[in-house]
């Protein structure tokens, strides 16, 4: 603790003030503003890549409206990529751009950095950014610190250490807070707008704030191991910042220097600045194509971005809170005299009322009334009192919603309402940047790539393009480019013909044929889409993630096939990075899919994807074999319910069973063991034929499959056939269905097993003519799967049974089926009438021979 006290004393001195901030914290911004106005520093040094200093004029331009971001990217030269950094480089081959690293540095009106910039320069102080440039930051890192499936674009304001600090977690639990965000709100955001009575008290409250924030960061840093800080570049950055501060301090000018940095760094800076600078051997890698520009940004994206790095959530809420806190009491003319405006209460009230109104305008089933709003506000206020907050904080507000607005279980009815609430707290504002900021990077990226791929965008002539996916890498890149544009909804190219891996058509084709044309709409749509990302890949990624999120929302009950479709699309666009999340989603959908047909379809598609992995470069997608296995297990589980298939769906089900059977031989990876456990497939089918409610078609089909696999010997099969065939005549449909199913899966029975033909004959014998004609179409169907040669063999068997060597001439009459059937009917009617007249003997002799001929 001695270290902490010593540090706290060094934070505020006449020459230099170290102000620790948490990024995007309105309380820090509020106190920072107060401090700047009181102390009038001569220079304000802010944590941020040094190259941003050139953009300050643009940032301070009155036309620039927050939220905006500085986008910075660079391409490291390949040879200079130090060892161990390959894992950092974006997954290589198949990218259609040279490897680029990119990052955003977002600014909101309530960001302490922007407030420092604005207020500082308004007071005439020099403002500058003092951190390492992004390129230097990345190149000095030696180990990837993000998970493999995370996008390459990161926030420069990551907060991993706060999230992980065990000290902070324990403190959160002790204080009764949910997590470190809640704890921060509880300890620090509540101190916004808490000015003391009188100027001296005012200053003291800010000083106390600074000391407490520093203590928080000091203790959070105590948990972080120094080796990690060296490896992830933190130490290098702090060294650079200390150098810049020292340089400024050496200038002998009047007035303190104000240093605004993330609190995590503030706690070591005073010491670093004091020390003699060590000769750091910083390599000077020539990063190429460094680009830094100002772009519009949105609250939604800020929230999503922070979701990866866990920054402060709910931007719109904090924005409103900050504005409410800044409005001084005397300027609020709409309040009655003597009422002090309380920012937390004000913002909470407004949100609750707006949320209530939203449910009414949307005509939701759970529409809320003003009574609910009153109850929610009361709940939030009382919770704040219980938790010793000056007003309802964000969690208090959300708790009010949870208690009073949700009328049902929170994971059912509550999800909709809480989703609305979170959306309202996040907000949908989009910032503005002046035209001098230049063309959005997405348009630049598009132009650059089109040029690299040799697509002509200098005029509006329609051109054709033929891409050889299998043999040329550059064509593959073009294909991805065009597919991404299509996915983003930018009008540029149209797919005419070629293999469609999503639908599974035309797979034998090797070339994709496109038709493209540049129009002004292309660029305008790109400008619109630039909010989603600064490069084609990033924009496509964000759209993909949105599609995934939508799929997740609709998730339950949908077939897994939709998920596999998106996966294939992602591969088609070259976005293999995101397949991890998709694979998880597909896995979950597979697990809930109740239909065997759908699961087998999904397996088919996954196999297709796996087999086409060469043109789609999906080799690295190790999740796919895993998914196929999981899907197979699920399918085998669903086999237990096959007996419940309704009769109409029996044929589809049989086809799925056949497909599944074919899978047993497939080997996905080149390991020695077989991929699929056959026992899982065969055991549910054993008991199937004895199930009374199983459709006969399936029973026949399964019997055929089992016989084919050697699990059912001939004797048993024949006894099953006989059993079905000898069934009472009221189940004639079943008898035929059984044969249809059997012949579908095991057609060779027809010519190899004379006993089978005998059984069929017995069946036919029992039918009278009407019955025969009624069943004829189904019998035809049963034998329709045979090739002509096989039919010939069958004919031979039949002939033998009847003692003839041949069937005799089989006439193919040039009569169409309906006519033949009608004729047969007439024939039967005539015979019947003859019988009634007692003339049947006259026909007896010819009848038997005719029957043999009719079977063709």
């Amino acid at each position: 603790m001695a270290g902490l006290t010593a540090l706290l004393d060094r934070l505020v001195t006449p020459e230099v003030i170290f102000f620790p901030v948490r990024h995007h914290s309105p309380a820090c911004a509020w106190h920072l503003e107060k401090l700047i106005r009181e102390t009038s520093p001569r220079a304000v040094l802010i944590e941020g890549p040094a190259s941003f200093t050139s953009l300050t004029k643009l940032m301070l331009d009155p036309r620039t409206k927050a939220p905006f971001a500085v986008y910075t990217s660079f391409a490291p030269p390949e040879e200079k990529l130090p060892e161990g950094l390959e894992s950092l480089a974006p997954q290589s081959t198949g990218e259609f751009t040279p490897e680029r690293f990119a990052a955003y540095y977002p600014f909101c009106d309530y960001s302490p950095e922007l407030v420092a910039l604005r207020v500082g320069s308004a007071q005439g102080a020099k403002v500058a950014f003092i951190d390492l440039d992004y390129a230097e930051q990345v190149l000095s890192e030696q180990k990837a610190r993000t998970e493999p499936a995370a996008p390459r674009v990161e926030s420069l304001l990551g907060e991993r250490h706060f999230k992980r600090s065990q000290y902070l977690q324990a403190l959160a639990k002790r204080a009764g807070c949910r997590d470190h965000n809640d704890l921060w709100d509880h300890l620090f955001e509540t101190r916004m707008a808490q000015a003391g009575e009188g100027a001296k008290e005012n200053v003291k409250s800010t000083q106390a704030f600074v000391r407490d924030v520093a203590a928080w960061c000091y203790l959070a840093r105590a948990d972080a191991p120094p080796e990690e800080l060296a490896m992830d570049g933190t130490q290098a950055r702090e060294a650079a910042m200390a150098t810049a501060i020292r340089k400024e301090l050496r200038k002998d000018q009047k007035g303190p220097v104000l240093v605004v940095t993330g609190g995590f760094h503030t706690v070591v800076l005073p010491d670093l600045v004091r020390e003699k600078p060590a000769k750091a051997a910083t390599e000077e890698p020539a990063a190429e194509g460094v680009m830094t520009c100002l772009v519009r940004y949105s609250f939604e994206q800020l929230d999503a971005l922070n979701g990866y790095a866990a920054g402060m959530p709910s931007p719109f809420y904090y924005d409103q809170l900050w504005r409410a806190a800044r409005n001084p009491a005397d300027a609020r003319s709409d309040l009655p005299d003597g009422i002090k405006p309380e920012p937390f209460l004000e913002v909470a009230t407004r949100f609750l009322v707006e949320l209530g109104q939203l449910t009414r305008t949307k005509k939701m089933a759970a529409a809320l009334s003003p009574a609910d709003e009153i109850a929610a506000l009361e709940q939030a206020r009382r919770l704040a009192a219980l938790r010793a907050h000056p007003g309802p904080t964000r969690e208090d507000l959300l708790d009010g919603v949870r208690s009073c607005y949700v009328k049902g279980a929170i994971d059912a009815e509550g999800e909709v309402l809480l989703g609305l609430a979170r959306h309202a707290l996040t907000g949908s504002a989009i910032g503005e940047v002046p035209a001098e900021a230049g063309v959005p990077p997405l348009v630049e990226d598009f132009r650059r790539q089109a040029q690299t791929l040799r697509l002509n965008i200098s005029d509006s002539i329609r051109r054709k393009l033929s891409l050889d996916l299998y043999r040329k890498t550059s064509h593959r890149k073009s294909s991805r480019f065009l597919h991404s544009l299509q996915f983003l909804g930018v009008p540029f190219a149209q797919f005419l013909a070629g293999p469609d891996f999503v639908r599974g058509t035309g797979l034998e084709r090797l070339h994709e044929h496109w038709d493209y044309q540049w129009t002004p709409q292309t660029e305008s749509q790109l400008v619109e889409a630039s909010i989603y990302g600064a490069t084609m890949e990033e924009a496509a990624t964000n759209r993909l993630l949105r599609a995934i999120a939508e799929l997740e929302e609709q998730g339950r009950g949908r077939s897994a096939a939709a998920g596999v479709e998106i996966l294939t699309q992602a591969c088609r666009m070259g976005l293999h990075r995101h397949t991890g999340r998709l694979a998880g989603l597909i896995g979950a959908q597979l697990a809930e899919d109740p239909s065997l047909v759908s699961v087998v379809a999904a397996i088919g598609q996954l196999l297709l994807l796996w087999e086409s992995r060469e043109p789609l470069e999906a080799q690295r997608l190790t999740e796919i074999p895993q998914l196929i296995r999981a899907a197979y297990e699920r399918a085998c589980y669903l086999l237990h319910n096959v007996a419940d298939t309704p009769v109409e769906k029996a044929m589809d089900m049989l086809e799925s069973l056949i497909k599944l059977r074919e899978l047993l031989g497939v080997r996905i990876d080149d390991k020695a063991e077989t991929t699929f456990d056959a026992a899982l497939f065969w055991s549910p089918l054993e008991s199937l034929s004895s199930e009374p409610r199983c459709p006969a078609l399936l029973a026949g089909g399964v019997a055929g499959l089992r016989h084919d696999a050697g699990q059912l010997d001939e004797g048993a099969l024949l006894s099953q056939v006989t059993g079905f065939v000898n069934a009472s005549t009221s189940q004639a449909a079943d008898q035929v269905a059984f044969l249809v199913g059997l012949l579908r899966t095991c057609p060779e029975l027809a010519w190899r097993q004379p006993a089978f033909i005998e059984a069929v004959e017995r069946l036919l014998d029992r039918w009278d003519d009407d019955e025969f004609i009624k069943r004829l179409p189904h019998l035809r169907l049963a034998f329709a799967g045979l090739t002509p040669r096989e039919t010939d063999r069958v004919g031979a068997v039949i002939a033998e049974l009847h003692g003839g060597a041949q069937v005799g001439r089989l006439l193919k009459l040039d009569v169409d089926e309906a006519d033949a059937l009608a004729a047969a009917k007439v024939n039967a009617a005539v015979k019947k009438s003859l019988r009634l007249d007692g003339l049947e003997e006259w026909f007896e002799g010819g009848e038997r021979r005719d029957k043999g001929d009719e079977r063709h």
Partner: protein
Amino acid sequence: MSTTIKEKSPRMVRPPAEVVYAEELSALAANDAGPKPPGWRLSPRAVRQFIVGSDGAALAHTWDGKKTRTVVTQKFYGDDALVERCIVTLLGNRGLLLVGEPGTAKSMLSELLSAAISGNSLLGIQGTAGTTDDQIKYSWNYALLLAEGPSPRALVPSPLYTAMKNGALVRFEEITRCQPEIQDTLVSLLSDKAMQVPELSGSDGVLFAGKGFNLIATANLRDRGVHEMSSALKRRLNFETVAPLSDKVMELKLVKEQTDALLRESGLNIECPADVLDLLVTTFNDLRHGRTAEGTVVEKPSTVMSTAEAVAVSHSAALDAAYFGNARLEGGHVARQLLGTVLKDNPDDIKRLRQYFDVVVKVRGKDSKVWQQFYEARKWFRA
């Protein structure tokens, strides 16, 4: 007529919370510095501490004539914020409705809240399909009624009536099992906070609720035999969802503690190895969430695999080991008792359980003896 129990009788299967935790309540009362709302025995912070625990801190107070220090134990595992919301709801005008799956400790929370706030958890109405108006409001001693005519003496108050009169909390368990028309009796009672007794005259004709009165109801929203609640009634209640434990470590601790307590009551001394309990909790977690720690997705059985069930299974498995085994809990005992828990009314559940065993347990059994024993016991799963 109010029901309170002061002492634990050794023959009672389950004494009420205010008796079991009498010492803790006394310790909290002695150290309670916060303002007490009218009708409450403890301040809201103290109530919170009663339920969530004092984090190991021992509070000084006088008990049984002697000065002692008592630690307040944690009784509700899970969401501290939920407890705060419940307490704050009870301070306000609306009633509290605890919803959630069976076995998530809703009734226990309701009992603890009423014990801490009113000192009496026995003012309760048990909702069934046959609950009538009389059981909610009041009924009559018919003999007296006929003899003397309507009078306060002849009136037999319901627990709700008593709670209103004394400014205490009333518990209404399983409110959605009552017929909707009967549930709606509460609508005007909760808004007016007054009960009309038309049979009596004068000031007895209306009973105004004393300060400190409120209602804690519990309900399963998705079960057979539950009815819909009208929106009018929903509007007068704050819904709080009690979720099953998601933290496996906490659940393991809870299962171990509860099992030990139950076994102590039965007077048995059985060895419950930690890895067997871990197996049990892991199995329950997997089947509850439909996903194992390795990421395999399994089909969830239709029965709710709650923590209470886990405790019951571990208790019966321990008893099985004690009386039919060699007094050492093993994977096989757990498997046998698991069947009765999973297979309640849906015969498909046995298939799901078998699938879980075939796909997950078999693989785990290769590395661990306990899981292997568990897997081998699947021979008992006959459809």
